[in-house]
């Protein structure tokens, strides 16, 4: 994008919010997947939906791609700029437009930070349920693009469950409304289609969200097991007993050890640590805690601890949330993976991951949302040892394939973005992908909206997916990876 014509159009669209200087553009060259970097051609900082529309119209006119960006915390390169593209930053569109407590609805601009929605409705006893661990900095717009999850989506659902309607600028520059604050808007469910489409179908400028009443009480259990299999069986037993915990998390010895070293949550030293969070009416939660404790004991837990205070609960969660970053203490480099398997395959896939890791003499730490089978294997390696990084990358990819082989998915919450485009070809057949492309072409025939993401592309010579590099926000202690 060297021609000044589009610059002039962009300046006219957003007079006080155009960045074109190379040194300033560098801020936007990557997201949380920091090993991929591309300098955009320009960055715009619109304040209104009309300005966003004018920017997209200019891009459409000049055939220039655009990429929407929230806080840039994504882990799959979803906000990675396309070559010479226009990055549309939502940093200035961060207002909560309307709060309707009786109907449990909130209208926001896309740049609103996730946590701020909860902060705004907390005085009324409500919260916004999707809670990716970056929630103190990530934006609703980014959450919508990625269909973000979090530890509590087992019970409360993902972003898609909580987005009811939106205003969208289509890649043509046309402004349209999808869905409604009322249920079942007539027509195809374009809201459901748009959430999780990773910025490839257009740019949202306003979102209508559902908020949820805070439960009367929250309780957390911590149980120590001698094997992952026993912890995994306990998870199945809890679900089979008819309970729907707010969260069910497992950490293995390696990741628990790393967390202990980092934030001292006082975890018992064991092969598998199970964390159970139950919420709801106080009397019911008390009964369920007793039942869950009994199930832990039946499966051989040698210590079951109930957090007695909010502080104790906070400490247990802090240890869990610190796990990704803490692994940096026990390994110079590591890759964060995000795969999903049917929950019952948990013990088997962990055995297989161990086998695969042993075969190439690497270690894998495991942290997972056990309730919904979402694994985050952390492949540990040392870049300084020649060839080890490639071995780690291969192992990481083969773990994803093993997830797919068990009927699972290549991503539970981090998205495909740039990172997992190739793995899409392993999970989906050509006709599956071709059908998704029909949707893409209906929305974006010129392939301008976040191009070259999600779908497999021809791999360039020497190109590879990357190891984990801490995001600056993580290093600064502002956010944790989850």
């Amino acid at each position: 994008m060297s021609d000044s014509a589009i610059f002039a159009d962009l300046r006219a669209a957003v007079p006080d919010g155009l960045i074109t200087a190379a040194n300033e553009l560098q801020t936007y060259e990557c997201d949380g997947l920091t090993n991929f970097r591309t300098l955009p051609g320009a960055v715009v900082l619109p304040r209104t939906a009309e300005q966003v529309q004018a920017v997209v119209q200019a891009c459409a006119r000049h055939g220039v791609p655009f990429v929407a960006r929230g806080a840039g915390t994504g882990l799959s390169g979803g906000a990675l700029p396309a070559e010479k593209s226009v990055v549309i930053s939502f940093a200035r569109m961060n207002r909560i437009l309307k709060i309707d407590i009786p109907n449990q609805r909130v209208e926001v601009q896309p740049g609103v930070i996730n946590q701020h929605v909860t902060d705004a409705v907390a005085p009324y006893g409500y919260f916004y349920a999707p809670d990716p661990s970056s929630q103190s900095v990530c934006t609703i717009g980014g959450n919508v693009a990625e269909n973000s999850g979090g530890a509590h989506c087992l019970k409360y659902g993902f972003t898609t469950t909580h987005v009811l309607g939106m205003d969208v600028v289509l890649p043509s520059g046309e402004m349209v409304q999808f869905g409604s604050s009322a249920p079942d808007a007539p027509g195809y469910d374009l809201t459901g289609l748009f959430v999780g489409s990773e910025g490839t179908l257009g740019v949202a400028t306003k979102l209508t969200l559902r908020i949820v009443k805070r439960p009367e009480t929250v309780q957390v259990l911590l149980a120590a097991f001698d094997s992952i299999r026993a912890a995994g069986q306990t998870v199945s037993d809890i679900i089979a007993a008819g309970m729907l915990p707010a969260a069910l998390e497992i950490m293995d010895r390696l990741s628990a050890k790393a967390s202990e070293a980092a934030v001292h949550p006082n975890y018992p030293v064991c092969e598998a640590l199970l964390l159970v969070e139950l919420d709801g009416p106080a009397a019911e939660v008390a009964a369920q805690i007793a039942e869950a404790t009994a199930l832990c004991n039946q499966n051989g837990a040698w210590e079951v601890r109930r957090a007695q205070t909010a502080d104790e609960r906070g400490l247990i969660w802090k240890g869990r949330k610190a796990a990704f970053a803490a692994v940096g203490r026990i390994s110079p480099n590591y890759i964060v993976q995000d795969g999903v398997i049917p929950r019952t395959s948990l013990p088997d896939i962990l055995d297989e991951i161990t086998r695969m890791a042993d075969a190439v003499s690497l270690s894998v730490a495991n942290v997972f949302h056990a309730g919904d089978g979402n694994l985050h294997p952390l492949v540990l390696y040392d870049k300084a040892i020649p060839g080890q990084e490639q071995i780690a990358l291969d192992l990481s990819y083969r773990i994803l394939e093993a997830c797919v082989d068990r009927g699972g998915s290549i991503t539970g919450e981090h998205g495909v973005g740039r990172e997992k485009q190739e793995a899409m070809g392993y999970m989906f057949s050509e006709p599956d992908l071709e059908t998704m492309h029909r949707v893409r072409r209906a929305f974006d025939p010129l392939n301008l909206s976040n191009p070259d993401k999600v779908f497999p592309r021809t791999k360039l010579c020497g190109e590879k997916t990357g190891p984990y590099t801490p995001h600056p926000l993580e290093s600064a202690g502002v956010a944790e990876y989850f």
Partner: protein
Amino acid sequence: MESVTSRIEEVKAAVSAGLVIERDGRAVASPASTQEVVALVRSADASGVGIEIRGAGTKRRWPGSISGDLLLETRALAGVREHSWQDLTATVGAGTIWSHMQKALAQHAQQVALDPLWPEQATVGGILATNDSGALRLKYGSLRDLVIGITLVLADGTVARSGGKVVKNVAGYDLHKLMIGAYGTLAVVTEVTFRLHSIPHSTQVWTLEATEADVCGAQMMKVLDSQLSVEAMQLRANAGGYALDVQLACMEEVMRAQLGMLDALAGVSGTLGVDMFSARHRLFETNGTVAKLTMLPSHIAKISAAVVRLGGESVAQASGILLARVPGVADLDRLRELLPPEGSLTVLRAADGLGTLPPVGTSAALMQEIKRRFDPKGTLNPGVVVGR
């Protein structure tokens, strides 16, 4: 131009013998597998034969009349293919009758937590195509929250699946969401994977009756704002008065306390044990115009009262979906006037027995483009236009 008969002969010749039969002067096929659907749809599309897709047919007239020359019945695409009860997921054929599926899942005390109309007849595919739901939606969400994967056949015979067999999955576009409420205009759905919920240990229905809609409406809003374990809630309205039904689902130990809290919120004691959650079926059992209205919960009492004033009756889910029967189509105009802009009104059954899909607003052109990309020749459910 070839006659319809000769085009149907082409289809017959292209698929396995006996798949297309003649019944009451109409070509009918009941494919038993995704592959049979592929063969049928592909050859019909190539020969220019329109296909009407039908499950049990309970809601087939909702989108107006469908003009396909070939009737594709999904009844043979039936059965629970897989019930991974420990994973709380199940995959079923699209032609499976809803109650049959629920009965199979109940063997492990599980269910698809949705209470659609006519569960004894309606099929999974038809419920999906019309995005039907009931009062359980308040707690468990609608089909878009419960369907996690789908297998579909496009008009040109392309078989695609989206989602998968795991609840948490963000890989690729959610094509299954696009199929929900699409009235069969984009593809033939052959298999559906659901996330399941446990059937609650105990439930109890609490009912408040009143002569004023506002009394029930106010209590409904209080219950929505409470921390009670509400599973379903509906507001019934007819000439005899108004009733609010609240279904609690919680452990036995806390049921009594929760019922006490409902009484306290209302300021009177509710009646227990009257299960009227299938009351909305009655709206279809007598003459009149039936419509589906959507709105924010705070408007339900007002609209319910308006329906009664017009001489009709209604049943509204607390999530904001109201089914109303009014004497004539003209009465619907009065209701439309009362609906705020976020609401909608869909005629499910007018005097001629046919419904009408409402206009969709600013996204109409995009919806038509999606239809064109999925079914360029208009082979599937011709006559039905979702994006108007």
